[in-house]
Protein backbone atom coordinates (compact mmCIF):
# COMPACT_ATOMS: atom_id res chain seq x y z
CA UNK A 1 0.00 0.00 0.00
CA UNK A 2 1.33 3.45 -0.89
CA UNK A 3 1.84 5.76 2.06
CA UNK A 4 -0.45 8.79 1.88
CA UNK A 5 1.44 11.97 1.03
CA UNK A 6 -0.01 15.24 2.34
CA UNK A 7 1.78 17.19 -0.38
CA UNK A 8 -0.41 15.41 -2.95
CA UNK A 9 -3.49 17.01 -1.43
CA UNK A 10 -4.97 19.86 -3.44
CA UNK A 11 -3.65 23.26 -2.32
CA UNK A 12 -1.40 21.76 0.41
CA UNK A 13 1.38 20.76 -1.99
CA UNK A 14 1.00 23.94 -3.98
CA UNK A 15 1.13 26.06 -0.84
CA UNK A 16 4.27 24.46 0.57
CA UNK A 17 6.05 24.59 -2.79
CA UNK A 18 5.41 28.32 -2.88
CA UNK A 19 8.60 30.08 -1.74
CA UNK A 20 6.78 32.44 0.64
CA UNK A 21 4.73 29.74 2.38
CA UNK A 22 6.90 29.73 5.51
CA UNK A 23 6.78 33.51 5.70
CA UNK A 24 2.97 33.35 5.57
CA UNK A 25 3.03 30.92 8.50
CA UNK A 26 5.51 33.06 10.45
CA UNK A 27 3.69 36.38 10.17
CA UNK A 28 0.76 35.53 12.51
CA UNK A 29 3.15 34.29 15.21
CA UNK A 30 5.31 37.39 14.75
CA UNK A 31 2.25 39.57 15.32
CA UNK A 32 1.42 37.52 18.43
CA UNK A 33 5.00 37.97 19.67
CA UNK A 34 4.87 41.74 19.05
CA UNK A 35 1.56 42.09 20.91
CA UNK A 36 2.95 39.93 23.74
CA UNK A 37 6.00 42.20 23.96
CA UNK A 38 3.81 45.30 24.04
CA UNK A 39 1.41 44.00 26.66
CA UNK A 40 4.14 42.29 28.66
CA UNK A 41 6.06 45.54 29.03
CA UNK A 42 3.22 48.05 29.07
CA UNK A 43 0.09 46.15 30.22
CA UNK A 44 -1.14 45.26 33.68
CA UNK A 45 1.29 42.96 35.49
CA UNK A 46 -1.27 40.30 36.30
CA UNK A 47 -0.66 37.02 34.50
CA UNK A 48 -4.29 35.98 33.82
CA UNK A 49 -5.05 39.42 32.43
CA UNK A 50 -2.01 39.99 30.27
CA UNK A 51 -1.60 38.88 26.67
CA UNK A 52 2.09 37.93 27.14
CA UNK A 53 1.50 35.37 29.87
CA UNK A 54 -1.78 34.00 28.51
CA UNK A 55 -0.54 33.62 24.93
CA UNK A 56 2.84 32.13 25.88
CA UNK A 57 2.07 29.93 28.90
CA UNK A 58 -1.40 28.83 27.90
CA UNK A 59 -2.03 28.97 24.19
CA UNK A 60 1.41 28.60 22.66
CA UNK A 61 2.09 25.48 24.74
CA UNK A 62 -1.42 24.09 24.25
CA UNK A 63 -1.50 24.53 20.49
CA UNK A 64 2.07 23.23 20.27
CA UNK A 65 1.26 19.80 21.69
CA UNK A 66 -2.00 19.71 19.76
CA UNK A 67 -0.24 20.46 16.47
CA UNK A 68 2.44 17.85 17.21
CA UNK A 69 -0.21 15.24 18.01
CA UNK A 70 -2.39 15.99 15.01
CA UNK A 71 0.14 16.87 12.31
CA UNK A 72 3.73 17.64 13.24
CA UNK A 73 6.25 20.27 14.25
CA UNK A 74 4.26 23.17 12.81
CA UNK A 75 5.47 25.62 15.43
CA UNK A 76 9.08 25.35 14.24
CA UNK A 77 7.79 25.79 10.69
CA UNK A 78 6.02 28.97 11.76
CA UNK A 79 8.76 30.14 14.15
CA UNK A 80 8.91 33.95 13.97
CA UNK A 81 12.42 33.94 15.40
CA UNK A 82 13.73 32.76 12.07
CA UNK A 83 12.53 36.07 10.63
CA UNK A 84 15.79 37.44 12.02
CA UNK A 85 17.30 35.78 8.94
CA UNK A 86 16.93 38.95 6.85
CA UNK A 87 18.81 41.16 9.32
CA UNK A 88 21.41 38.44 10.01
CA UNK A 89 22.16 38.06 6.28
CA UNK A 90 22.83 41.78 6.26
CA UNK A 91 24.94 41.54 9.42
CA UNK A 92 26.93 38.63 8.01
CA UNK A 93 28.43 41.03 5.43
CA UNK A 94 30.30 42.77 8.23
CA UNK A 95 30.78 39.97 10.74
CA UNK A 96 33.08 36.97 10.66
CA UNK A 97 31.37 33.59 10.51
CA UNK A 98 32.48 31.02 13.05
CA UNK A 99 32.04 27.29 12.99
CA UNK A 100 29.94 25.90 15.82
CA UNK A 101 32.43 24.11 18.11
CA UNK A 102 32.62 20.40 17.40
CA UNK A 103 32.27 19.58 21.10
CA UNK A 104 28.87 21.28 21.11
CA UNK A 105 27.50 19.56 18.00
CA UNK A 106 25.18 17.39 20.03
CA UNK A 107 22.23 17.80 22.36
CA UNK A 108 24.15 18.18 25.63
CA UNK A 109 24.35 21.97 25.35
CA UNK A 110 20.61 22.08 24.68
CA UNK A 111 20.01 19.75 27.64
CA UNK A 112 21.93 22.17 29.87
CA UNK A 113 20.00 25.16 28.50
CA UNK A 114 16.70 23.31 28.94
CA UNK A 115 17.54 22.53 32.56
CA UNK A 116 18.47 26.15 33.19
CA UNK A 117 15.28 27.33 31.49
CA UNK A 118 13.12 25.00 33.60
CA UNK A 119 14.90 26.14 36.76
CA UNK A 120 14.39 29.78 35.75
CA UNK A 121 10.72 29.06 35.04
CA UNK A 122 10.19 27.88 38.60
CA UNK A 123 12.62 30.16 40.43
CA UNK A 124 11.58 33.44 38.82
CA UNK A 125 7.94 32.32 38.30
CA UNK A 126 8.09 33.25 34.62
CA UNK A 127 4.51 32.05 34.27
CA UNK A 128 3.34 34.69 36.74
CA UNK A 129 5.20 37.65 35.30
CA UNK A 130 4.16 39.34 32.04
CA UNK A 131 7.24 41.56 32.30
CA UNK A 132 9.68 38.63 32.53
CA UNK A 133 7.76 36.75 29.83
CA UNK A 134 8.21 39.73 27.52
CA UNK A 135 11.92 39.82 28.34
CA UNK A 136 12.11 36.10 27.62
CA UNK A 137 10.59 36.66 24.16
CA UNK A 138 12.89 39.58 23.46
CA UNK A 139 15.92 37.65 24.73
CA UNK A 140 15.00 34.71 22.55
CA UNK A 141 14.89 36.92 19.45
CA UNK A 142 18.21 38.46 20.51
CA UNK A 143 19.97 35.12 20.96
CA UNK A 144 18.52 33.86 17.66
CA UNK A 145 19.90 36.97 15.96
CA UNK A 146 23.38 36.68 17.49
CA UNK A 147 23.77 32.93 16.85
CA UNK A 148 22.35 33.18 13.34
CA UNK A 149 24.63 36.13 12.53
CA UNK A 150 27.83 34.54 13.80
CA UNK A 151 27.33 30.87 12.94
CA UNK A 152 26.04 28.93 9.92
CA UNK A 153 22.30 28.94 9.32
CA UNK A 154 20.51 26.23 11.23
CA UNK A 155 22.95 26.30 14.17
CA UNK A 156 20.47 28.03 16.45
CA UNK A 157 17.64 25.56 15.70
CA UNK A 158 19.75 22.43 15.96
CA UNK A 159 22.18 23.14 18.78
CA UNK A 160 20.91 26.08 20.83
CA UNK A 161 17.13 26.50 20.87
CA UNK A 162 15.57 24.67 23.86
CA UNK A 163 12.08 25.24 22.47
CA UNK A 164 12.98 23.88 19.05
CA UNK A 165 14.62 20.82 20.56
CA UNK A 166 11.62 20.31 22.81
CA UNK A 167 9.50 20.36 19.62
CA UNK A 168 11.90 18.02 17.80
CA UNK A 169 11.79 15.50 20.62
CA UNK A 170 8.03 15.56 21.03
CA UNK A 171 7.42 15.47 17.28
CA UNK A 172 8.97 12.01 17.17
CA UNK A 173 5.42 10.86 18.02
CA UNK A 174 3.81 12.89 15.22
CA UNK A 175 1.77 11.16 12.53
CA UNK A 176 3.75 12.72 9.64
CA UNK A 177 7.34 12.75 8.42
CA UNK A 178 9.36 14.07 5.51
CA UNK A 179 10.56 11.26 3.22
CA UNK A 180 11.68 10.57 -0.34
CA UNK A 181 8.88 9.55 -2.69
CA UNK A 182 11.21 7.34 -4.71
CA UNK A 183 14.65 6.63 -3.17
CA UNK A 184 15.94 5.63 -6.64
CA UNK A 185 15.50 9.22 -7.80
CA UNK A 186 17.67 10.36 -4.87
CA UNK A 187 20.35 7.86 -5.80
CA UNK A 188 20.54 9.37 -9.28
CA UNK A 189 20.36 12.95 -7.98
CA UNK A 190 23.60 14.74 -8.90
CA UNK A 191 23.39 17.67 -6.45
CA UNK A 192 21.60 16.44 -3.31
CA UNK A 193 19.67 19.69 -3.61
CA UNK A 194 17.42 18.96 -0.62
CA UNK A 195 20.41 19.46 1.66
CA UNK A 196 22.75 21.56 -0.51
CA UNK A 197 20.14 23.95 -1.90
CA UNK A 198 19.48 24.78 -5.54
CA UNK A 199 20.06 27.80 -7.71
CA UNK A 200 18.73 28.03 -11.26
CA UNK A 201 21.25 30.20 -13.12
CA UNK A 202 21.14 31.25 -16.76
CA UNK A 203 24.00 28.77 -17.32
CA UNK A 204 22.17 25.89 -15.68
CA UNK A 205 21.29 24.33 -12.34
CA UNK A 206 23.80 24.42 -9.51
CA UNK A 207 23.83 23.75 -5.79
CA UNK A 208 23.97 26.71 -3.44
CA UNK A 209 26.90 25.00 -1.76
CA UNK A 210 29.06 25.13 -4.90
CA UNK A 211 27.74 28.51 -6.11
CA UNK A 212 26.64 30.45 -3.03
CA UNK A 213 26.72 33.82 -4.79
CA UNK A 214 25.31 32.77 -8.16
CA UNK A 215 22.55 34.90 -9.67
CA UNK A 216 19.25 33.16 -10.33
CA UNK A 217 16.23 31.64 -8.67
CA UNK A 218 17.44 30.32 -5.30
CA UNK A 219 16.00 27.53 -3.17
CA UNK A 220 17.86 26.98 0.12
CA UNK A 221 18.30 23.41 1.30
CA UNK A 222 17.82 21.90 4.74
CA UNK A 223 19.42 24.16 7.36
CA UNK A 224 19.78 21.37 9.89
CA UNK A 225 21.49 19.23 7.21
CA UNK A 226 18.99 16.40 6.90
CA UNK A 227 19.33 14.42 3.66
CA UNK A 228 15.78 13.44 2.68
CA UNK A 229 16.26 9.76 1.67
CA UNK A 230 18.09 9.12 4.95
CA UNK A 231 15.51 10.74 7.23
CA UNK A 232 14.30 8.18 9.78
CA UNK A 233 13.07 10.60 12.36
CA UNK A 234 11.47 13.99 12.90
CA UNK A 235 14.41 14.90 15.15
CA UNK A 236 15.97 18.16 13.85
CA UNK A 237 13.24 18.63 11.22
CA UNK A 238 11.70 22.10 11.44
CA UNK A 239 9.13 21.33 8.72
CA UNK A 240 10.38 24.43 6.91
CA UNK A 241 9.79 22.53 3.64
CA UNK A 242 13.04 23.90 2.14
CA UNK A 243 13.70 20.35 0.89
CA UNK A 244 10.35 20.30 -0.92
CA UNK A 245 11.18 23.49 -2.77
CA UNK A 246 14.84 22.66 -3.38
CA UNK A 247 14.19 19.24 -4.94
CA UNK A 248 13.98 19.76 -8.71
CA UNK A 249 12.41 16.32 -9.18
CA UNK A 250 9.38 16.86 -6.91
CA UNK A 251 10.53 13.81 -5.02
CA UNK A 252 9.91 14.91 -1.43
CA UNK A 253 6.85 13.59 0.38
CA UNK A 254 5.23 14.65 3.64
CA UNK A 255 4.00 11.20 4.42
CA UNK A 256 1.56 9.93 6.99
CA UNK A 257 2.82 7.27 9.39
CA UNK A 258 1.71 5.46 12.52
CA UNK A 259 1.92 8.01 15.37
CA UNK A 260 4.10 7.25 18.37
CA UNK A 261 6.03 4.43 16.74
CA UNK A 262 9.11 6.19 15.36
CA UNK A 263 11.14 5.36 18.45
CA UNK A 264 10.70 1.65 17.71
CA UNK A 265 12.95 1.71 14.67
CA UNK A 266 14.89 5.01 14.74
CA UNK A 267 18.51 4.74 15.85
CA UNK A 268 19.06 7.86 17.91
CA UNK A 269 22.42 8.93 19.22
CA UNK A 270 22.84 8.71 22.98
CA UNK A 271 22.61 12.49 23.49
CA UNK A 272 19.23 12.49 21.73
CA UNK A 273 18.00 9.62 23.92
CA UNK A 274 19.13 11.50 27.05
CA UNK A 275 17.17 14.52 25.83
CA UNK A 276 14.03 12.36 25.55
CA UNK A 277 14.59 10.82 29.00
CA UNK A 278 15.26 14.23 30.55
CA UNK A 279 12.15 15.75 29.00
CA UNK A 280 10.01 13.08 30.62
CA UNK A 281 11.44 13.72 34.08
CA UNK A 282 11.41 17.49 33.55
CA UNK A 283 7.78 17.30 32.42
CA UNK A 284 6.96 15.34 35.56
CA UNK A 285 8.76 17.92 37.69
CA UNK A 286 6.95 20.76 35.94
CA UNK A 287 3.59 19.24 36.87
CA UNK A 288 4.74 18.17 40.35
CA UNK A 289 5.75 21.77 41.13
CA UNK A 290 2.05 22.74 41.03
CA UNK A 291 0.69 20.37 43.67
CA UNK A 292 0.73 20.48 47.51
CA UNK A 293 3.09 17.47 48.04
CA UNK A 294 5.81 19.45 46.26
CA UNK A 295 5.51 22.29 48.76
CA UNK A 296 5.42 19.84 51.66
CA UNK A 297 8.59 18.26 50.30
CA UNK A 298 10.20 21.70 50.04
CA UNK A 299 9.27 22.50 53.67
CA UNK A 300 10.74 19.20 54.88
CA UNK A 301 13.89 19.69 52.83
CA UNK A 302 14.17 23.21 54.23
CA UNK A 303 14.06 21.83 57.79
CA UNK A 304 16.51 19.06 56.93
CA UNK A 305 19.06 21.36 55.31
CA UNK A 306 18.42 24.22 57.72
CA UNK A 307 18.00 26.77 54.97
CA UNK A 308 15.19 28.80 53.43
CA UNK A 309 17.20 29.67 50.35
CA UNK A 310 14.74 28.90 47.53
CA UNK A 311 17.41 28.66 44.82
CA UNK A 312 19.25 26.04 46.85
CA UNK A 313 16.10 24.09 47.70
CA UNK A 314 14.80 24.20 44.14
CA UNK A 315 18.19 23.15 42.73
CA UNK A 316 18.36 20.29 45.22
CA UNK A 317 14.89 19.01 44.26
CA UNK A 318 15.69 19.41 40.56
CA UNK A 319 19.03 17.65 40.78
CA UNK A 320 17.71 14.88 43.03
CA UNK A 321 14.70 14.16 40.84
CA UNK A 322 16.36 14.32 37.41
CA UNK A 323 19.46 12.60 38.80
CA UNK A 324 17.35 9.82 40.28
CA UNK A 325 15.47 9.50 37.00
CA UNK A 326 18.62 9.25 34.91
CA UNK A 327 20.22 6.85 37.39
CA UNK A 328 17.15 4.58 37.54
CA UNK A 329 16.85 4.61 33.74
CA UNK A 330 20.47 3.59 33.44
CA UNK A 331 19.97 0.79 35.95
CA UNK A 332 16.76 -0.56 34.41
CA UNK A 333 18.23 -0.44 30.87
CA UNK A 334 21.33 -2.33 32.07
CA UNK A 335 19.18 -4.91 33.85
CA UNK A 336 17.08 -5.44 30.71
CA UNK A 337 20.26 -5.84 28.68
CA UNK A 338 21.70 -8.40 31.11
CA UNK A 339 18.44 -10.36 31.18
CA UNK A 340 18.42 -10.52 27.40
CA UNK A 341 22.00 -11.78 27.46
CA UNK A 342 23.60 -8.64 26.07
CA UNK A 343 26.72 -7.32 27.77
CA UNK A 344 26.84 -3.88 26.18
CA UNK A 345 28.00 -0.70 27.88
CA UNK A 346 25.47 1.14 30.11
CA UNK A 347 25.14 3.95 27.57
CA UNK A 348 24.40 1.48 24.79
CA UNK A 349 21.73 -0.06 26.99
CA UNK A 350 20.12 3.36 27.50
CA UNK A 351 20.39 4.04 23.77
CA UNK A 352 18.53 0.82 23.04
CA UNK A 353 15.78 0.89 25.66
CA UNK A 354 15.56 4.60 26.46
CA UNK A 355 13.82 5.44 23.18
CA UNK A 356 10.59 4.28 24.82
CA UNK A 357 10.68 7.54 26.78
CA UNK A 358 9.85 9.62 23.70
CA UNK A 359 6.09 8.84 23.62
CA UNK A 360 6.03 9.01 27.44
CA UNK A 361 7.65 12.45 27.40
CA UNK A 362 5.08 13.65 24.90
CA UNK A 363 2.22 12.27 27.01
CA UNK A 364 3.57 13.87 30.20
CA UNK A 365 3.80 17.35 28.68
CA UNK A 366 0.60 16.97 26.64
CA UNK A 367 -1.35 15.91 29.74
CA UNK A 368 -0.09 18.90 31.71
CA UNK A 369 -0.46 21.47 28.93
CA UNK A 370 -3.91 20.15 28.00
CA UNK A 371 -5.06 20.93 31.55
CA UNK A 372 -3.99 24.57 31.38
CA UNK A 373 -5.13 25.06 27.80
CA UNK A 374 -8.56 23.55 28.33
CA UNK A 375 -9.18 25.36 31.62
CA UNK A 376 -8.39 28.73 30.18
CA UNK A 377 -8.46 28.64 26.39
CA UNK A 378 -11.12 31.37 25.97
CA UNK A 379 -9.20 33.78 28.21
CA UNK A 380 -7.19 34.69 25.09
CA UNK A 381 -10.24 36.67 23.91
CA UNK A 382 -10.44 39.20 26.78
CA UNK A 383 -6.64 39.52 27.08
CA UNK A 384 -6.35 40.25 23.36
CA UNK A 385 -9.17 42.77 23.67
CA UNK A 386 -7.45 44.39 26.63
CA UNK A 387 -4.09 44.59 24.84
CA UNK A 388 -5.74 46.09 21.75
CA UNK A 389 -7.71 48.50 23.94
CA UNK A 390 -4.43 49.62 25.47
CA UNK A 391 -3.26 50.31 21.93
CA UNK A 392 -6.31 52.49 21.46
CA UNK A 393 -8.27 50.16 19.17
CA UNK A 394 -12.07 49.99 19.60
CA UNK A 395 -12.62 46.28 20.32
CA UNK A 396 -15.26 46.33 23.06
CA UNK A 397 -15.06 45.63 26.79
CA UNK A 398 -13.34 42.36 27.74
CA UNK A 399 -15.42 39.64 29.37
CA UNK A 400 -13.07 38.23 31.99
CA UNK A 401 -15.36 35.35 32.86
CA UNK A 402 -14.50 33.60 29.58
CA UNK A 403 -12.22 30.67 30.31
CA UNK A 404 -12.90 26.96 30.10
CA UNK A 405 -13.32 24.86 26.97
CA UNK A 406 -14.49 21.66 28.64
CA UNK A 407 -16.18 20.94 32.00
CA UNK A 408 -13.63 20.66 34.80
CA UNK A 409 -14.57 17.05 35.62
CA UNK A 410 -13.48 15.97 32.11
CA UNK A 411 -9.93 17.12 32.61
CA UNK A 412 -8.50 14.34 34.73
CA UNK A 413 -10.01 11.52 32.62
CA UNK A 414 -8.56 13.27 29.57
CA UNK A 415 -5.12 13.44 31.17
CA UNK A 416 -5.39 9.77 32.14
CA UNK A 417 -6.30 8.95 28.53
CA UNK A 418 -3.30 10.88 27.18
CA UNK A 419 -0.90 9.16 29.59
CA UNK A 420 -2.35 5.73 28.80
CA UNK A 421 -1.90 6.41 25.08
CA UNK A 422 1.69 7.43 25.80
CA UNK A 423 2.24 4.22 27.76
CA UNK A 424 0.65 2.22 24.96
CA UNK A 425 2.99 3.75 22.36
CA UNK A 426 5.96 3.25 24.70
CA UNK A 427 5.02 -0.39 25.21
CA UNK A 428 4.91 -0.85 21.42
CA UNK A 429 8.43 0.59 21.20
CA UNK A 430 9.60 -1.76 23.97
CA UNK A 431 7.85 -4.73 22.38
CA UNK A 432 9.62 -4.08 19.07
CA UNK A 433 12.94 -3.66 20.83
CA UNK A 434 12.40 -6.85 22.84
CA UNK A 435 11.49 -8.73 19.65
CA UNK A 436 14.80 -7.64 18.11
CA UNK A 437 16.51 -9.37 21.03
CA UNK A 438 13.99 -12.21 20.96
CA UNK A 439 13.62 -11.73 24.71
CA UNK A 440 10.29 -10.39 25.90
CA UNK A 441 11.11 -10.54 29.62
CA UNK A 442 13.71 -7.79 29.06
CA UNK A 443 11.03 -5.59 27.49
CA UNK A 444 8.72 -6.46 30.39
CA UNK A 445 11.25 -5.16 32.91
CA UNK A 446 11.45 -1.78 31.21
CA UNK A 447 7.67 -1.75 30.75
CA UNK A 448 7.17 -2.28 34.49
CA UNK A 449 9.44 0.69 35.15
CA UNK A 450 7.43 2.81 32.71
CA UNK A 451 4.17 1.62 34.24
CA UNK A 452 5.30 2.73 37.70
CA UNK A 453 6.40 6.11 36.36
CA UNK A 454 3.02 6.61 34.67
CA UNK A 455 1.22 5.60 37.87
CA UNK A 456 3.30 8.21 39.74
CA UNK A 457 2.49 10.81 37.08
CA UNK A 458 -1.23 10.03 37.39
CA UNK A 459 -0.99 10.47 41.16
CA UNK A 460 0.59 13.91 40.63
CA UNK A 461 -2.07 14.94 38.11
CA UNK A 462 -4.80 13.77 40.52
CA UNK A 463 -3.62 16.19 43.25
CA UNK A 464 -5.41 19.51 43.75
CA UNK A 465 -3.67 22.34 41.96
CA UNK A 466 -1.71 24.90 43.94
CA UNK A 467 -0.64 27.87 41.87
CA UNK A 468 2.04 29.33 44.02
CA UNK A 469 5.15 31.28 43.20
CA UNK A 470 6.77 31.01 46.62
CA UNK A 471 8.35 27.66 47.39
CA UNK A 472 8.05 28.12 51.16
CA UNK A 473 5.21 29.74 53.04
CA UNK A 474 6.16 32.96 54.87
CA UNK A 475 7.11 32.33 58.48
Amino acid at each position, binding site marked *: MRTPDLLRLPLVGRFFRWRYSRFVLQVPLLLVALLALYDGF*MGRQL*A*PKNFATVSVW*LHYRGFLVLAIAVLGNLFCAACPMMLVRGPTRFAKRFLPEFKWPRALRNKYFVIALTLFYLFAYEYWDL*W*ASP*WLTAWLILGYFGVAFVVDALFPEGTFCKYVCPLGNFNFTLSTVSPTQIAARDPEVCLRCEGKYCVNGRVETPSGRKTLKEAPNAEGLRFPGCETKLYVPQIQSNMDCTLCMNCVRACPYDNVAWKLRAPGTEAAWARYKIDVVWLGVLLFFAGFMNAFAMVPPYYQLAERLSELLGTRNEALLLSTIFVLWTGLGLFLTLGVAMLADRVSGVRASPLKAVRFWGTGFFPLAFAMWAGHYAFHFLTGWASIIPVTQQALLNLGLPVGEPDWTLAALVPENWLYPLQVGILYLGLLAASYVLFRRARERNHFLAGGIVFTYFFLLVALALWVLAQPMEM*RGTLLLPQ
Partner: protein
Amino acid sequence: MRRLFLLALVLLSACRPKTGEPLEAEVRFVPEHPTVGKAEICIEVDPRLELTRVEVVGDMTHAGMIPVEDEAHPAGPGLWRVDAFDFNMRGDWVLTITAYDKQGKKYVKEVRLTVP
Protein backbone atom coordinates in the same frame (compact mmCIF):
# COMPACT_ATOMS: atom_id res chain seq x y z
CA MET B 1 21.90 53.22 15.88
CA ARG B 2 23.66 51.47 18.76
CA ARG B 3 22.75 54.34 21.12
CA LEU B 4 19.13 54.15 20.04
CA PHE B 5 19.12 50.41 20.71
CA LEU B 6 20.62 50.91 24.17
CA LEU B 7 18.14 53.67 24.91
CA ALA B 8 15.27 51.40 23.85
CA LEU B 9 16.59 48.67 26.14
CA VAL B 10 16.82 51.04 29.10
CA LEU B 11 13.31 52.39 28.43
CA LEU B 12 11.88 48.90 28.09
CA SER B 13 13.52 47.76 31.29
CA ALA B 14 12.00 50.78 33.02
CA CYS B 15 8.49 50.08 31.74
CA ARG B 16 6.21 49.29 34.58
CA PRO B 17 2.44 49.48 34.30
CA LYS B 18 0.36 52.28 35.78
CA THR B 19 -1.91 51.05 38.54
CA GLY B 20 -4.35 53.95 38.39
CA GLU B 21 -5.67 56.09 41.26
CA PRO B 22 -4.56 54.36 44.46
CA LEU B 23 -7.13 53.41 47.07
CA GLU B 24 -5.98 54.02 50.62
CA ALA B 25 -7.62 51.16 52.47
CA GLU B 26 -6.96 48.60 55.15
CA VAL B 27 -7.92 45.09 54.14
CA ARG B 28 -8.56 42.33 56.68
CA PHE B 29 -9.67 38.77 56.32
CA VAL B 30 -11.77 36.54 58.55
CA PRO B 31 -10.15 34.11 59.22
CA GLU B 32 -6.98 36.18 59.32
CA HIS B 33 -5.14 33.76 56.99
CA PRO B 34 -7.74 32.42 54.54
CA THR B 35 -7.56 28.81 53.42
CA VAL B 36 -9.36 27.20 50.47
CA GLY B 37 -13.06 28.00 50.78
CA LYS B 38 -15.09 31.05 51.78
CA ALA B 39 -13.63 33.95 53.73
CA GLU B 40 -14.86 37.35 54.82
CA ILE B 41 -13.07 40.42 53.48
CA CYS B 42 -13.30 43.73 55.35
CA ILE B 43 -12.20 46.87 53.56
CA GLU B 44 -11.78 49.96 55.66
CA VAL B 45 -11.41 53.30 53.93
CA ASP B 46 -11.47 56.93 54.96
CA PRO B 47 -15.23 57.68 55.50
CA ARG B 48 -14.76 61.10 53.89
CA LEU B 49 -14.18 59.32 50.56
CA GLU B 50 -17.95 58.71 50.16
CA LEU B 51 -17.76 55.57 48.11
CA THR B 52 -20.83 54.24 46.35
CA ARG B 53 -19.59 50.90 45.12
CA VAL B 54 -16.72 48.53 45.95
CA GLU B 55 -15.88 45.49 43.85
CA VAL B 56 -13.43 42.73 44.64
CA VAL B 57 -11.92 40.57 41.90
CA GLY B 58 -9.66 37.66 42.80
CA ASP B 59 -7.18 36.35 40.26
CA MET B 60 -4.58 33.67 40.63
CA THR B 61 -1.08 34.36 39.39
CA HIS B 62 -1.27 31.68 36.70
CA ALA B 63 -2.80 32.49 33.33
CA GLY B 64 -6.09 30.93 32.38
CA MET B 65 -7.93 30.87 35.69
CA ILE B 66 -11.46 32.25 35.88
CA PRO B 67 -11.47 35.27 38.21
CA VAL B 68 -13.66 35.25 41.31
CA GLU B 69 -15.79 38.39 41.36
CA ASP B 70 -17.77 39.75 44.27
CA GLU B 71 -19.23 43.04 45.44
CA ALA B 72 -18.77 44.46 48.91
CA HIS B 73 -21.65 45.92 50.85
CA PRO B 74 -21.46 48.87 53.27
CA ALA B 75 -21.12 47.73 56.89
CA GLY B 76 -20.58 51.01 58.70
CA PRO B 77 -18.88 54.37 58.17
CA GLY B 78 -15.95 53.71 55.79
CA LEU B 79 -16.35 49.98 56.22
CA TRP B 80 -17.17 47.64 53.34
CA ARG B 81 -17.51 43.90 53.59
CA VAL B 82 -17.60 40.82 51.34
CA ASP B 83 -19.28 38.12 53.41
CA ALA B 84 -18.09 34.99 51.65
CA PHE B 85 -15.36 35.49 49.10
CA ASP B 86 -14.62 32.18 47.41
CA PHE B 87 -10.90 31.32 47.49
CA ASN B 88 -11.46 28.27 45.33
CA MET B 89 -7.88 27.11 44.89
CA ARG B 90 -4.63 26.94 46.81
CA GLY B 91 -1.90 29.28 45.69
CA ASP B 92 -1.04 32.92 45.12
CA TRP B 93 -3.99 35.27 44.82
CA VAL B 94 -4.17 38.84 43.66
CA LEU B 95 -7.22 40.72 44.91
CA THR B 96 -8.10 43.84 42.96
CA ILE B 97 -10.33 46.14 44.97
CA THR B 98 -11.99 48.73 42.79
CA ALA B 99 -14.01 51.51 44.43
CA TYR B 100 -16.10 54.28 42.91
CA ASP B 101 -17.07 57.54 44.60
CA LYS B 102 -20.11 59.76 44.04
CA GLN B 103 -18.43 61.51 41.13
CA GLY B 104 -17.74 58.17 39.49
CA LYS B 105 -14.01 58.44 40.19
CA LYS B 106 -12.28 55.09 40.28
CA TYR B 107 -9.81 53.96 42.95
CA VAL B 108 -7.85 50.72 42.83
CA LYS B 109 -5.94 48.70 45.40
CA GLU B 110 -4.14 45.42 44.84
CA VAL B 111 -3.66 42.90 47.66
CA ARG B 112 -1.53 39.79 47.25
CA LEU B 113 -1.86 36.79 49.51
CA THR B 114 -1.04 33.10 49.54
CA VAL B 115 -3.84 30.64 50.28
CA PRO B 116 -2.30 27.46 51.66
